[in-house]
C-alpha cells in the first residue's frame, strides 16, 4: 500500500487492524485508538480518499490502496491549511480527537471546497469530541476553506 505518498510493504498478519500496523509497524502515531469499533472517529485515515476507521479495517482491506494519515496532511514546518486554521482558532482542548477530525475535514474540503457550517458539522458528525471544542473546529474548517479556496 501507499502510506502518505510512500510505497510501504508490511509483513503482518492480514487480519491485523490497519491502525496497529500504522502505529506499531510504521510508527505513525497520528491515528489514535478510541473505541475499536469505528464509532468515535479518532482513528480515521483516508483510504483512497475516503475517511475510514483504521481500527476495524483489516490490513488486507488496505492492500494496494492509498492511505493518508494526519501526518500526511502536513507537519510543523509545512502544515496543511486545516492544521494552520485549527492552530489559528485554537480549535482543540485535549487534542485526542484532532487527527480524525482533520481527516474528515480534509475529505470534505476536497469534495466541497466551500461548505457552509451545516455541511461542515455533518461532515464531522462521525467524529466525537468530549472536551466540547466543536464550534471552534467548525470555525477552523470554515477559515481554512475561505483562506485556501
Amino acid at each position, binding site marked *: 500500500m501507499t502510506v502518505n505518498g510512500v510505497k510501504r510493504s508490511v509483513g503482518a498478519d492480514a487480519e491485523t487492524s490497519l491502525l496497529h500496523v500504522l502505529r506499531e509497524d510504521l510508527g505513525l502515531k497520528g491515528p489514535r485508538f478510541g473505541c*475499536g469499533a469505528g464509532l468515535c472517529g479518532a482513528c480515521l485515515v483516508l483510504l483512497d480518499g475516503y475517511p475510514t476507521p483504521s481500527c476495524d479495517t483489516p490490513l488486507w482491506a488496505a492492500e494496494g490502496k492509498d492511505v493518508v494519515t494526519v501526518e500526511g496532511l502536513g507537519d510543523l514546518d509545512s502544515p496543511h491549511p486545516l492544521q494552520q486554521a485549527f492552530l489559528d482558532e485554537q480549535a*482543540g*482542548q*485535549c487534542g485526542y480527537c484532532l487527527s480524525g477530525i482533520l481527516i474528515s475535514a480534509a475529505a470534505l474540503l476536497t469534495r466541497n471546497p466551500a461548505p457552509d457550517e451545516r455541511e461542515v458539522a455533518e461532515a464531522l458528525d462521525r467524529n466525537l469530541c468530549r*472536551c*466540547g471544542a466543536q464550534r471552534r473546529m467548525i470555525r477552523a474548517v470554515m477559515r481554512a476553506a475561505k483562506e485556501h479556496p
Partner: protein
Amino acid sequence: MSMSARPAVPDHSTHGTGSAPAGRHPEPSGAAVSLPRGVTANPRVSQWLAIHGDGTVHVFSGKAELGQGILTALGQIAADELGVAPHRVLVLAATTASGPDQGFTAGSMSVADSEALRMACAEARALFLREAAARLGVDADEMVVADGVLRDRDGTCKTSYWDLAACVDLDREILGLASPRPVAGRAVVGTSAARVDLPDKLTGRPRFIHDLSLPGRLAGRVVRPPSPAARLLEVDPAPVERLPGVVAVVRDGDFLGVVAETETGAESAAVALRQACRWREEESLPPEESMQAVLRGAETETTVVRDDGAEPGPAATRGSGAGSAAPTATTAPAGTTGTAGTTDGTDGTDGTDGTDGETPVAATSMSATYTRGFLAHASIAPSCGAALWDEDGLTVWSHSQGVHPLRRAIAQAAGVDVATVTVHHVEGAGAYGHNGADDAAYDAVLLARAVPGRPVHVVWSRADELTWSPLGSAMVADVAADLAPDGRLLSWSYDVWSYGHTARPGYAGSPGLLAAAHTERPHPLPPSADPALAGGGGTGRNAVPLYVIPRRSIRAHRALTTPIRTSALRTLGAYLNVFAIESFIDEIAAAAGRDALEYRLAHLTDPRAREVVDRAARAAGWPGQPTEDGVALGIGFARYKDRGAYCAVVAEVEAVHDIRVRRLTIAVDVGRVVNPDGVANQIEGGAVQSTSWTLKEQVRFDRTQITSDDWESYPILRFTEVPEVVVEVIDRPDEPSVGSGEAAQGPTAAAIGNAVAAAVGVRVRDLPITAERVVAAMDD
C-alpha cells in the same frame, strides 16, 4: 508558513523590584509572611524552576495537563514574574522524581494554586538581581529586567540570568519576601497566548501516553471480571500461554491479564483468556428504575450545609414586603459564607424598613424534586498506563491527576517502599475528574511485575472505560420554599441525596486502585466519600443558593455504601444542585407571575453575580422574541463552589420534534484573567459537555452489570447537535484568579431546563431532559 506560535516578546523593562524592595533580599525580619500552601509543602526555589545558561527556563509544575491548557497558563505566569519572553519558558510535565508535590489537579484550583509558582519565580528574580547588583556594584533597587537581561537604569551596566545561571544557587528556601510583580507590570498574563501543546496534537506527533515509546516495550491487556461482584471460579491459562507472542499470563486472585510482544498479540490473548475463565456472577447493583428510592432509603451521613433555623412551612421572618411588587436588592453582598442573616443582613432587601417583630405569613409554599442519573467520564481515549520494574525500582507512566498521591497508593498496594517508586505524568485525552487513569497505571504495575526489566504498556478497552471507570453519582434533591404574597423568597429548604463524590488514590487509607481490590490479598475500595465542605463539598457542593433568602435549611445526605463505584466527575454535586436551585427559582418566578431574570436580580445583591446575570441576559436579547412556536430562552446562574467563578448562561432551545439547544450565551467572571482565550475555551467546552450530559447522558445498568458499554448505548453530543456558544469573559484585574473548568456546567443545565419549560409549557425535573421525558410530562 510555520506552525510555531509567535508570542510577542513582552516589554519587561518595568522596575525590576515591583512595588516593594525585592531586588534587595532582606534577611527575615521575623514578621509572619503568609505563604501559599504550595510553598509550604515545597519550600525551595529549585523545586519550582531552573534557569539555564543557554537562555531557557524550566518550570517544574505539580499540576497535570489534562487538555485544559494549564501548561500554557503556568508558562505565562512564570514568564511575567521572571521578566523573560514566554518562548524561553518550558513547563515540564509533573513527575515525582523532581518538582513540587501539588496533590491533585482538580477542583478548578490550578490557576488559583499558581500563586506558589509566582512566588518562587519572584524569589528567583530577586536572587538574580541581588547577585547582579553585587557584581556590577549598583543598587539592586535601581535595576530592571527585560527578557532576562538585568541592567541599571541607563543601561551602562548589565548582565543576564543566563550569564549568572551557574553562580546563583536556587536551592534555598522561599522566604516570601520578594513581592510578585504588580498586575500592571504583567505583560504576558492577560494575553491569549497560544496553547503550547496544540502544534504536536494537530500534526499527529507522539505526545499522548498511548504513543509512549519505551525500549523493549511489551503490550498488556487486562481481563476484567464480567461484572463488579463477579468472582473467578477457574481459569486455564495454558492454551493462552502457548499463543504466539504471548510473554506472560498474569493471575493474582481475580485480577487477570496478558503480556505480549505486540498490541494485536495482547488483544488476541485477552480474548482467549476471557474464554478460558469461568466466573460466578451475582446481583450487586441497585435497580436503575428506582434509584430515587434507593438513595433516599440508604443509610447516610448528613451534613448540615446551612441552617438559619427554619423548617419548611409557615415561615417566620421580618419585613412582610407588602406593597413592594418588585423588591430591589440594595444591601451589601449577602455573603457566601455564614448566614445571610435574619438580624441585620437582609432587612433592607425588600425596600421596607424591615421592622422587627412582624410575623409575615407565607402566601405560598412550593416544593419539587429533581434528579440526575449516573454519568460517565467518557473520555475519547481509553485509560492507559505503563510500568517498568528493574534494578532502580518501579517506574510508572500515567495520565493521573496526581502523580504524588498515585505514587503513595501504588507503593501501598504493591507493598514496596515508596522511595523506590517514581511516577511520571504523560498527557492523556481530556480528564474530567477521577477516571480510570490511576487504575490503568496499577494494571501496568501488576503486569510488569511478571516481566522484570521490560516496560508493559496497558490500554483499556472502550467497554472497560465506560463500565469500570468511576462514575459521577446519581442524585436526588427535594427543594421547598415559602413565598411572601409578592413572591419574595422567605424560606428555603433543601435536601440532597447522593453517593460519595471522591474515591481518589489514597482516600480513606486505601490505595483506591481498581486492580488492588481484585488481587489475592485485596485492598477493597472503601465507600466513596465527599470532600469536606471547606474544600467545596461533594454532595453539598453549590447546594446554597446565592440569592437573598432570610431562612435556609440545607442538608446533604451522602450514602454510606457505594454499590456502584463513584468518584469525582467535573463539578461533583454542583451539576444537580445548580440545576435544582435554578429550575426551582424559575418555577417560583413563574408561579409569582414574575420574569425569571427580574426575579433573580431582585434576590441577588452580590454585584459580581448581578453583572454576569445581567450581561448574559442582555447579550442574549432577553426575554427574546416569541416568534417561533416551541422556541424559548432560559437562564441559569451560579458561583462555583460559592467562592469560585461567577457564571450565567442563557440557552435558546428549540423543542418541536426533538430538543435542540441552538445557542448558549454566557457571561463569566473568573477574577484576574491569565489567558482570555483559554478561559473562553474552558467555558465553551464546559457548556457543551454539560449540554451533552443534560440532553443525552445516563449510565444504564441491570442488577448485575453496567450495560452502557459503547458509544451506541452511551451516546454523547455530536457535531450537528452542538449549540452556538458565545462567551463574554469579564476581566477583574484586582480580584484573585479562580478556575474556569467547572463554572459553566450547572448553569448550562439549568438554562436548558428552563428554556425547555418555557418552550413547551411543562417542566422536566429529571436529567437528562429527553424528548421522551418531555412527552411524558405533557401527558401528565
